[in-house]
Every structure is written in C-alpha cells, then in structure tokens.
C-alpha cells in the first residue's frame, strides 16, 4: 500500500457573490514510502493548494475539499482538527516557499525548533536545546549552539531555509512536502538546499513531495513527476521517460521554455503563448486548448480524460499529443547533480527504464 494516496481530490473556493473557483479538480496520485514525487506546473495550477489540502491547512471557511487523502490508510480529510494537529509536524511535515516570511520574527530560531520537539517528542529544556542544535548541525548550519539564539532576521535566506527544513525534519516525519523550497533563494543557494533535501530524505527514508514550477528541480530529484494544469494532472510519468518522451503539449511547452546551457546559440526559447489566465473551464473542453499549438476541434468540445498512453506508458490527458521522440526535447540541466549518495532499493528499481 502507498504511504500517501490522493484520490480524486477537489478543492473549490467559493466567495459570496463570486463564481466558485475549482482550484483542484479531481487530482489522483500516490507516494510510496521513501519515494520522491514531483508536482509541476505554472503558478495557479493548483499544486500548492493540493499540498495545503493534504496538510489540512486550507481555511475552513470558503474552501470546500472533496475526495480522499489517505495517509497510511486513514483518510486525513475525515480526521478531526485536533487529530490532524497530532499528525502534522510529526508524521507529515512541510517546507514553504519563502524563508524570509515563514519564520516568526519575534522568536529565536532555537525556540521555533524546540517548540516542535516539546509538542511531539515531549522533550523539554536542555534536552530539547541539545536536539535542536544537532538538527541545525544536520542541515549544515555551522556553530549551531550559537545560532539557536539567533533571531530569523540575523540569518541569511539560505540559512533560514535550512532552519525551516530542520524544523520540518525534527520528528523524522514519514512524508515531507516541499512547496517551491528554493524559488526565493539565490541560484547558488538553490542547489545547496536541493542537495540537502535529497540527502536528508534518502538518509531518513522520508518520502518527499516536491512542488515546483522548475523542471530543473524535478530533473535532479524526483522519481515520478505529475504535470498539472488548471487544477488537473495532464501528464504523469517516471522522470526519465517524461524528459525523454514528453507527450502533452503543455509538458513540451514547459521544457522548451527553459533556457539550456547545451543548446546551440541562436536557438530561441519558445515560451508557451498566453498565460494560465487564458483558460477554458474543464467543463467546456481542455483547459489548455486556448494556448495549445496542437489543438484539434475535439479539444474545445469535451475535456479529455487522463488515460494510459499506449506508446510510452505515461498517463496522459490529451487528444493530440506529440508523437514520441518527434519533438526532440532534451532533459534540462538538473539543478542537483546526478546521484551522489546511495539510493534505497525502491528508487533504484524505478530508475531503470
């Protein structure tokens, strides 16, 4: 059984006097213990809302959540708020996008780590301090004992993100959700943080859901990748196959719009025309159709289903995908170098095509 399985998850935001917004519209995927899964898409595609729904962090008023989120067999959506509080931070943890704003400015970093230890591991006083220091050490913060007494504003962005990761991993959770953990950081720091995440999840066997708009992040880190558009998954595959044979026009569009070091000079980038705002409601056809270069009549009549692709084995939501290998799109340079540490058996098995 999968550690996490999200089944037909829907999130609808409704506000008085406005049309309800289907931010997540029937998303299904699962995460095996110790595996790394990527959710990829432009901002507004529903990937962050999906993660907040899993965590039970959506506002209770105005957000309507449907479907099921099974973690270790239990449906998290049915749990009481208090039961969910017991789980959060201990079994499932999360790292957010912006380390500048995600730490409480009036508490020391140490206090913000020990409060998790107090809550879930019943550690107090000096024990908690010692553990917090060793956590900071593990995420690569030098001089951890002194850093415990620092306030967030005394740390650099990269260090804050390390501290946030330390907090998330304080209780050795079985699942870590990272929502664009590197977007707000400098490029050089990005690689370090991804490296760190990779190392930590491999060491502790924690499963990782990586949410990103950046295919470079996915390329170096994830076993399985789900590409989302307008609240639905449009293509799912294991990583190698996705980059080798992208099929959905949106996936190829994402790949083609990433600048690459190894492409010949003068080859222009091809951004996807339009913006995610130009979308069609799924009820009226494929949401990507207005921006799609391979649109056929059917696309604007009935929305395609997510079906297994007989050629590549991807799950695919498209009537007119690119032929496999037709549009040669190479893998973008991964932000993290290829394996540097031994991977657990599960992952290695899935790597081999």
């Amino acid at each position: 059984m999968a550690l996490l399985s999200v089944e037909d998850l829907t999130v609808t935001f409704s506000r008085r006097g406005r049309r309800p917004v289907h931010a997540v519209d029937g998303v299904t995927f699962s995460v095996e213990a110790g595996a790394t899964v990527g959710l990829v898409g432009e901002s507004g595609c529903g990937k962050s809302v999906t993660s907040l729904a899993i965590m039970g962090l959506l506002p209770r008023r105005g957000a309507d959540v449907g479907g099921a989120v099974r973690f270790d067999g239990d449906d998290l959506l049915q749990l009481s708020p208090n039961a969910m509080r017991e789980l959060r931070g201990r079994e499932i943890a999360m790292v957010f996008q912006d380390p500048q704003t995600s730490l409480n400015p009036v508490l020391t970093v140490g206090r913000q780590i020990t409060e998790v230890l107090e809550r879930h591991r019943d550690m107090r006083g000096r024990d908690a301090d010692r553990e917090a220091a060793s956590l900071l050490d593990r995420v690569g913060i030098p001089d951890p004992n002194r850093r415990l007494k620092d306030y967030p504003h005394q740390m650099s962005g990269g260090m804050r993100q390390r501290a946030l990761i330390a907090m998330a991993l304080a209780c050795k959770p079985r699942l870590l959700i990272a929502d664009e953990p590197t977007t707000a950081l400098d490029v050089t720091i990005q690689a370090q943080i991804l490296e760190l995440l990779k190392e930590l999840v491999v060491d502790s066997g924690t499963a990782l859901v990586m949410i990103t708009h950046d295919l470079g992040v996915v390329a170096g880190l994830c076993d399985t990748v789900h590409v989302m558009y307008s609240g639905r998954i449009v293509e799912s595959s294991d990583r190698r196959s996705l980059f080798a044979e992208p099929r959905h026009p949106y996936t190829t569009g994402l790949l083609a719009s990433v600048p690459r070091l190894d492409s010949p000079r003068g080859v222009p980038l091809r951004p996807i025309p339009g913006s995610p705002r130009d979308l069609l409601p799924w009820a009226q056809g494929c949401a990507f159709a207005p921006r799609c270069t391979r649109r056929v009549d059917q696309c604007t009549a009935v929305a395609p289903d997510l079906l297994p692709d007989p050629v590549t084995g991807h799950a695919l939501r498209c009537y007119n995908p690119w032929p496999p290998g037709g549009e040669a799109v190479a893998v973008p340079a991964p932000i993290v170098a290829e394996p540097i540490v031994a991977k657990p058996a599960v992952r290695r098995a899935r790597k081999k095509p």
Partner: protein
Amino acid sequence: MLKFVVRRLLLLVPILVGLSILVFAWVRALPGGPEAALLGERATPERIAAVRHEYGLDKPVYQQYVTYVGHVVTGDFGQSIKTTRPVLGDIKVKFPATIELALAALIFALVLGIPLGFIAARRYQTWADSSTIVGSLLGISIPVFFLAYLLKYVFAVKLHWLPSTGRLDPTIDIPHPTGFYVLDAIIAGDWHTFVDALRHLILPGIALGTIPLAIVTRITRAAVLEVSNEDYVRTAEAKGLRRRTVDERHILRNAMLPVATVVGLQTGLLLSGAVLTEIVFAWPGMGSWLYDATFNRDFPVLEGGILFLAVVFVMVNLLVDVSYGVLDPRIRLQGK
C-alpha cells in the same frame, strides 16, 4: 539600545525648550492677569501693583522667562497665586490621582479590548465581528462627559451601586505615602479602604477608558487579521502546534506590536479625557486642577503643571518606543 534611548532623550530637549517658551508666552497672553482673578474687579491699583510686584510680573518678559527657567531647572516650580501652596507640592498630590485614574482606564481598555479584538478577528465577518465593529465605533463617538453622566446616573443616582464623586469616602483617613489610594490602602493593610478606593475608580475609569477600549479593540482585530495571514503562522500550523500555542505565541505576540504603539498614542487622549472625567466625577487630579488654574490665571500653576504633563507625555512615548524594542527583536538588535 542605550544609544537609541540617549538619542531620543536628546531630541526631547528642543521640544521641551520650545514648549516652555510656548507655555510661558501663552500664560502671559491670557486676557486679564492673575491679579484680576485674585482680587476681583474692584481692586485698587495699589493692591494690583503689589501683587504684580510680588510675583515678579512687573519685570520685563524676557527677564521673567530667565528667572522662570532658572527656577524650573533647579526644580522650583514656584507657588500658586490663588492658594499660595507650592506648585510642586500640589503636583505630588494631583498627579498620582490622574495617573491612578488613567491606569484604571488603560487596564479596563486592555483587559477587555485585546480579547474582544481577538475574538472579533477569529469570527471575521460574522455577527460577533460586526457588532464589535459597530460597538467600537459607538465607543469612539460618545463624548466622554456624556458617557460619564450616563454612568453616574444609572449606577450612582438610580441604582446606588457605586459612589459618584471623589476618590475615597470622606470618613476614611489613612496615610498616603504614594498618593495612589489603591496602593496606599494595600500598604496600610486596610481591606475596607482598598475596596472603597476601587469602587470609586470604577465609573470614572470606565468613562475614561471607553475610547481607548474601542481603539485597542479595533487595532487588535486588525493586527490579528493581518498576522493570521502571515506565512510564519502557517508554518506554526504545519508544525502541528496546539491551537492555543499558535494563538498566543505566534499570532498574539506579533499582533501586540501595533497595539503597543497605539497604547502609547492613547496617553494624550487619556490626559485630554481626564480633564472632562475629573470634572464630572469631582476627581481631584491634574485635569481639574489645571482647568481651574486657567480660569484663575494662576501663572505658576499653569507653567509648572503643563510643562510637567508635557514631560510625562513625551517620556511615555519614549517608553513605548523602548517597549517596542523589547517586543520586537528586529529593533532591539539593530546594528548588531
């Protein structure tokens, strides 16, 4: 931090000098002199001249100012023309009375306002929230003296629950080492007096505290709404902390920053309101004292009293800024 305080104190000097000139000029520009108020309209020119000479009012104005500053710097505020009591002695009695009243009002405002604002923010856009908003708007719209009348009429005149005037039952006589009657009663170990002093504080405290209550409620509500949407609150929730911990440690502590500033700004409002409240409740404080002095043209009282209040006012603001540093490490650790 120390540098910050010293710099702020230095900035006060020009303000205080300017203010002392302003007060000095004002007092001398008031229509009619103290002699008129003191001696009545039928005083003989000789008597008037004698009084003017006694208080140095016959000297050139700049000389009067120099004498005045010289005295103030040495802590000599002169004596009241009307009562001939030393001004500083009167301040020692009147000031604690006003502060006791203002503190009662502030405590009333904070103890009620912070929870009310917090609850309103939690119930954002429900009837509880709307009625808090409307209630707070009513609170800032009601004139202090009218509210004082209403309270006095209902709770003192009609229901006889609480006393309507003064600080203490006139039959009670205890020593007043601090001038804060509640504190004095505790020092004297006199339970009966303690209760009586508290009972006298309730109505004027509520009257004076209602506007600050309304403002504290609104600011708390706005701050809690804003802080609740901060990323670090989401982080705290993601850690699975208990709701109470999230509320107290993460939301309220940060929401208190703007509340602290606003409480500092209330000082002026409290002093203004104190004049009116003290008059309605016959509370023997600075407000009614200075007010009487204005009508008596009691120069030394006005010069001393207003300058003293202004010093207190700016010091409180400084204190608030310092407390801001205590609450917010980003300010405390500046330049480190």
